[in-house]
């Protein structure tokens, strides 16, 4: 296929970008990567189109070349395209280098055995070093930009394979000192240095040599696969991204390797070299340099962080977010070693003023405010990881950072948080001065928030903001009655003014601590039940009451509901009403509620409502408290977003309906015991968890037996042996069968579960019953009589019964003992077996040989003959 036209490509790229996953699922997906590589060499396409193709490969290499081999092929092709470019300026060289680098790094093909890697790395290093690559490979005008690009590519490869450039440190230093472009080389060197210091502390390679050697001391090229290998070839978070000065020994050991004085001097010189020219870097690049060097030197012995000091004053004066952030990182990394107490104060003050400076945008203010509350103090007091006002940040310093109603929501919340922290301290210290009390200001601010949320027609965002503010205050100042009392009062007033905010109140109650929740519930309940019950906002009141109703103030609540019931004419109001009833049921309210539910079950217009009311009534009348609680409790099965009705439904399903559950019991058949007129199966139940009210139900396959009754056990506990359960069988034919077993039980959480257990087998021998014992001495006559009665209707047979080592005597005593009528041990036994319902089986075991005994048998039911044969032949094997 020939190259695609520009328009076709534009269309294809557009379709891909609109949804890469959809495109890749389509028919064109397979060819895209190949077409792209091919058309890069087409002479018909313009450079601009090719750049857009390369741009795509820079963003989506994983989709174009999904595995390492495809990536290797792609990188090779890209490098070929690069080499084949005519020796004139071209816009393609830069993106080709970037694309080859991206393909190798993303595809996981980068490595010492990859051909493309072995071509790309020397090329990049040569370009970065400004070497002459011959044959007009790089036109003079592109030399400088390509040199920078090569550095960027190397930096990206070093980022993905830390340690790769460990052998090139000396070379890079040399380039930086001479003619090289400052920023790309500085960033590359600082990254390689940082990675080497981390890895080398594990590997033990000599840093001094690395820093000074112009070619790799390890040989085999300036890139160092050995260091990469030692880094396990994998990316590791090389240090916590927030370098903390005080840290555990384990972490410190990473970088604690001592350097010789000479190595330390070289390292210091390299760092100083980087810092001295750092002002030539763009602000964002300066910040990266500082983070990297901060990481690199943190915890290194013999490397005083004072090297950074000359930069600090310059950095502290700027308005640049990245620079101040980098200074904070240095502060966190070196603490007192770099920042004296005065320095710390100055930094804090600069941060405070930056957090409110009118010349900076809001998002910068907010980030600085976050930095203030996470400020890495020299001597932190509070718990780690929680936002707190630094010790030095008193009300005086903060006064410009306090919230006002005019602020945007995020600014208001961030500043409100600070105000709360100040109030918490204020409470402790009670040190006033001339400043107005923060607590008092907080009260006024909250009042303003409530007032705004109460406005008729106001947007939901205002209400949300108000409740977020209230939550924040409750969360930060939970233990302070001076704050909570007005908070409760204010919220109650807000509810009075705008009951439609009920969902926000319910949400707030769900999230606040009991210190606020319980008193707020009481107040809100009073707010609702003191109303006449006939109100435009009835649906909100009902929603509210469903959350706050409990066992207290029952009569007021029930009065309200009775009054409200008359006005609940629509389906949703009735459901709201029933929700409250449900809450009361759960809270264990009895008496008056029964009457109300009865009334509702009769009066409600909606049949669904009546049904629900009746159901609740029945539940209340029939279920004991704990079961009722479980029946109406929130269902874990309900998805979070389901409506309350669905949730309720699921609650019932969970609690009242029987659950299909994994088996919590095991059932086995015990030894055969012969007692009474019917064969009885002895069952041994075993529980894995405590279970209650176990009922076992059995079903016989076919109609062989009469239906079996259920067996009930009140309680089963794991580890405690249960009494065997006896299951009488009533065979209609003397035949073995399989019992289907179902178990129903209640778990300790009150759920009723159903489980289908593995089937139980009733064996032929399980049906054997003895004949009544004849009087002493009359055995033989009794047997002969039975023997003769079998014919002519019955059947006679002879079966060879193999004997094990136990011999005939052992076999009989083990299996046939209860049925022996005449015994002449050890040679002759006459056995008579009653097979319910009314068959007999007679066996004569005589003249045993070493390995078996011939058995003469008669039965009045010829259908059992094959069963008897199987039984006898299997006896020897049966244990």
């Amino acid at each position, binding site marked *: 296929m020939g190259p695609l036209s520009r328009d076709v490509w534009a269309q294809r790229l557009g379709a891909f970008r609109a949804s890469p996953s959809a495109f890749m699922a389509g028919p064109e997906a397979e060819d895209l990567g190949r077409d792209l590589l091919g058309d890069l060499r087409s002479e018909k396409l313009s450079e601009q189109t090719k750049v857009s193709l390369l741009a795509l490969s820079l963003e989506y290499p994983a989709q174009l070349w999904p595995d390492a081999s495809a990536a290797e092929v792609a990188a090779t092709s890209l490098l070929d395209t690069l080499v084949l470019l005519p020796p004139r300026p071209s816009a393609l060289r830069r993106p080709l280098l970037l694309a080859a680098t991206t393909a190798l790094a993303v595809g996981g093909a980068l490595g010492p055995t990859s051909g493309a890697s072995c071509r790309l790395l020397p090329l990049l290093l040569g370009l970065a070093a400004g070497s002459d690559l011959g044959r007009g490979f790089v036109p003079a005008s592109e030399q400088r930009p390509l040199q920078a690009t090569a550095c960027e590519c190397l930096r990206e490869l070093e980022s993905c394979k830390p340690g790769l450039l460990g052998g090139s440190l000396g070379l890079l230093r040399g380039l930086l000192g001479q003619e090289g472009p400052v920023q790309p080389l500085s960033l590359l060197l600082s990254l390689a240095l940082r990675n080497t210091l981390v890895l080398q502390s594990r590997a033990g390679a000599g840093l001094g040599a690395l820093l000074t050697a112009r070619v790799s001391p390890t040989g085999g090229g300036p890139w160092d696969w050995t260091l990469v290998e030692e880094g396990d070839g994998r990316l590791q978070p090389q240090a916590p991204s927030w370098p903390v000065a005080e840290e555990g020994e384990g972490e410190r050991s990473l970088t604690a390797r001592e350097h010789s004085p000479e190595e330390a001097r070289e390292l210091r010189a390299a760092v100083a070299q980087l810092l001295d020219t750092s002002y030539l870097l763009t602000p964002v690049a300066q*910040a990266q340099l500082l*983070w990297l060097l901060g990481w690199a030197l943190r915890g290194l012995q013999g490397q005083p962080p004072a090297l950074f000091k000359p930069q600090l004053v310059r950095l502290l004066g700027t308005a640049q977010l990245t620079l101040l952030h980098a200074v904070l990182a240095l502060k966190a990394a070196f603490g007192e070693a770099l920042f004296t107490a005065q320095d710390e104060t100055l930094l804090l003050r600069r941060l405070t003023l930056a957090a409110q400076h009118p010349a900076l945008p809001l998002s910068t203010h907010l980030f600085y405010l*976050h930095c203030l509350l996470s400020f890495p103090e020299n001597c932190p007091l509070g718990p780690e990881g929680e936002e707190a006002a630094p010790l030095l940040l008193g009300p005086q310093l903060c006064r410009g950072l306090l919230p*006002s109603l005019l602020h945007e929501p995020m600014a208001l919340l961030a500043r409100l948080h600070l105000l709360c922290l100040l109030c918490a301290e204020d409470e402790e210290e009670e040190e006033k001065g001339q400043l107005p009390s923060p607590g008092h200001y907080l009260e006024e601010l909250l009042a303003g928030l409530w007032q*705004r949320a109460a406005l008729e027609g106001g947007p939901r965002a205002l209400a949300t903001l108000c409740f977020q503010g209230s939550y924040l205050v409750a969360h930060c100042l939970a233990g302070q009655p001076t704050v909570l009392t007005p908070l409760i009062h204010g919220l109650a007033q807000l509810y009075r003014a705008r009951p439609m905010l009920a969902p926000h109140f319910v949400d707030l109650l769900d999230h606040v601590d009991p210190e606020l929740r319980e008193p707020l519930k009481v107040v809100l309940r009073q707010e609702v039940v003191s109303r006449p019950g006939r109100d435009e906002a009835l649906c909100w009141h009902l929603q509210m009451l469903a959350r706050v109703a409990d066992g207290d103030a029952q009569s007021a609540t029930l009065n309200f509901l009775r009054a409200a019931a008359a006005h609940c004419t629509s389906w949703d109001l009735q459901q709201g009403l029933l929700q409250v009833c449900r809450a009361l049921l759960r809270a264990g309210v009895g008496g008056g509620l029964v009457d109300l539910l009865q009334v509702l079950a009769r009066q409600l217009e909606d049949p669904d409502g009546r049904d629900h009311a009746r159901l609740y009534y029945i539940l209340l009348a029939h279920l004991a408290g704990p079961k009722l609680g479980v029946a109406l409790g929130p269902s874990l099965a309900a998805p979070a977003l389901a409506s309350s009705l669905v949730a309720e439904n699921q609650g019932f399903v969970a609690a009242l309906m029987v659950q299909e559950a994994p088996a919590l019991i095991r059932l086995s058949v015990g030894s055969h015991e012969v007692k009474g007129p019917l064969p009885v199966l002895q069952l041994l139940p075993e529980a894995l968890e405590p279970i209650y009210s176990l009922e076992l139900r059995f079903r016989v396959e076919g109609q062989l037996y009469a239906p079996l009754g259920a067996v009930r056990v009140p309680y089963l506990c794991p580890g405690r042996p249960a009494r065997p359960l006896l299951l009488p069988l009533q065979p209609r034919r003397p035949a073995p069968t399989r019992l289907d077993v179902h178990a129903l039980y209640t778990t300790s959480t009150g759920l009723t579960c159903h489980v289908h257990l593995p089937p139980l087998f009733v064996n032929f021998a399980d049906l054997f019953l003895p004949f009544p014992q004849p009087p002493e001495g009359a055995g033989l006559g009794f047997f002969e009589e039975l023997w003769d009665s079998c014919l002519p209707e019955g059947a006679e047979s002879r079966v060879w019964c193999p004997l094990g080592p136990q011999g005939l005597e052992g076999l009989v005593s083990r299996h046939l003992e209860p049925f022996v009528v005449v015994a002449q041990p050890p040679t002759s036994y006459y056995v008579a077996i009653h097979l319910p319902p009314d068959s007999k089986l007679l066996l004569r075991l005589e003249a045993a040989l070493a390995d078996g005994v011939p058995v003469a048998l008669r039965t009045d039911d010829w259908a059992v003959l094959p069963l008897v044969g199987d039984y006898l032949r299997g006896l020897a094997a049966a244990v």
Partner: protein
Amino acid sequence: MAQRAVWLISHEPGTPLRGTVRFSRRYPTVEKRARVFNRASYVPIPEDGPFLKALLFELRLLDDDKDFVESRDSCSRINKTSIYGLLVGGEELWPVVAFLKNDMIYACVPLVEQTLSPRPPLISVSGVSQGFELLYGIQDFLYSGQKNDNELNTKLSQLPDLLLQACPFGTVLDANLQNSLDNTNFASVTQPQKQPAWKPGTYKGKPQVSISITEKVKSMQYDKQGVADTWQVVGTVTCKCDLEGIMPNVTISLSLPTNGSPLQDILVHPCVTSLDSAILTSSSIDAMDDSAFSGPYKFPFTPPLESFNLCYYTSQVPVPPILGFYQMKEEEVQLRITINLKLHESVKNNFEFCEAHIPFFNRGPITHLEYKTSFGQLEVFREKSLLIWIIGQKFPKSMEISLSGTVTFGAKNHEKQPFDPICVGETAYLKLHFRILDYTLTGCYADQHSVQVFASGKPKISAYRKLISSDYYIWNSKAPAPVTYGSLLL
């Protein structure tokens, strides 16, 4: 330090999706690192469609807030920074740096070089400030000198190429995209060594230095017992230095007259090479006293090519330039208003323009107006429920002017009249808009003779000054008004 992806999304209220992704760029090498660093907590970057939807929801821009939605409205979902967690495909993508400006949403996802659970504090993520700086840079590029949609579209179409220069692998090399554009243009020039990365080329031509000081004055006036009026000056010094040589050195000194108000809270451009500690420490946080440093404020720097903000400052002048009171009373069906404005005698009485905007919120259109004014003209915008008192170029000799009258309103139309949560009932304000050229309230000026330039040729130096009002509010003293903590400090 790197970014995993960057987006530009235009916010389009009223359209089905409420927005369009105008630009997006992903960085797969960074993504690969994210997968390793974040381990089990890794959440991949979504495609543009799902990202757009999740972001607009999180920023409350889907304008469907009729019902309470827990995942958005819950009291415990508190965002205190412009950094969000977005629910995409059941997982939470965090941290997403995003902000809305001029109907454009700027967003990026910085790489976090560790696991995300537990969430590390934002301060520890170096990519966050880098991301902000990149987004601010894109914003500056899109809106500097941009006048219409066509220009915006042109600039948007340049973004892919520019980011290929400024952020080829997700690590930002230069947040100033103009530099990247110039870099492409300067590419043919062989750059000498030790060229600053923030200066893509060198200037050739007549040397000149232009310094312009713009002061904005804001104020909150209440005319009330127990509540203090507040006002503040915010200054911006903008420079354009056209000087030959790689690194010409320039020192600009800002001076104050003898009774001038000291400059505080000074923030400088990163090209400033050193700062006097007095400049660094002079801050509005401290109580003012006579010992405050009052200049001259020296700023030695090496200028970039383009126009730049050399420094910002604030200042606390002793009196507001215009002191006023506003009284508004509801009288049955009409409002009675009385306004009095007085220009301070020390202020230059020569305005480019001066207007008082008197808006009436949460009311219907103006149906009837009777008024009397001592000076200027009154314009009525009936449908907007707004009066504009045009004061003109000069206050009268008495320096004091007044306006009084009654206003009647028609029925409120909720569609046309947006709800204002602050100005409810009699809570109301008037806002002053004015501009005075060749004047600063602090008295701050750049003395042309004190500008030192160490470069070849003697440059032409020009200096400009102006004062602009900004957020200059006078609240109705007859009703409650929102106060700041500062207003309570009497």
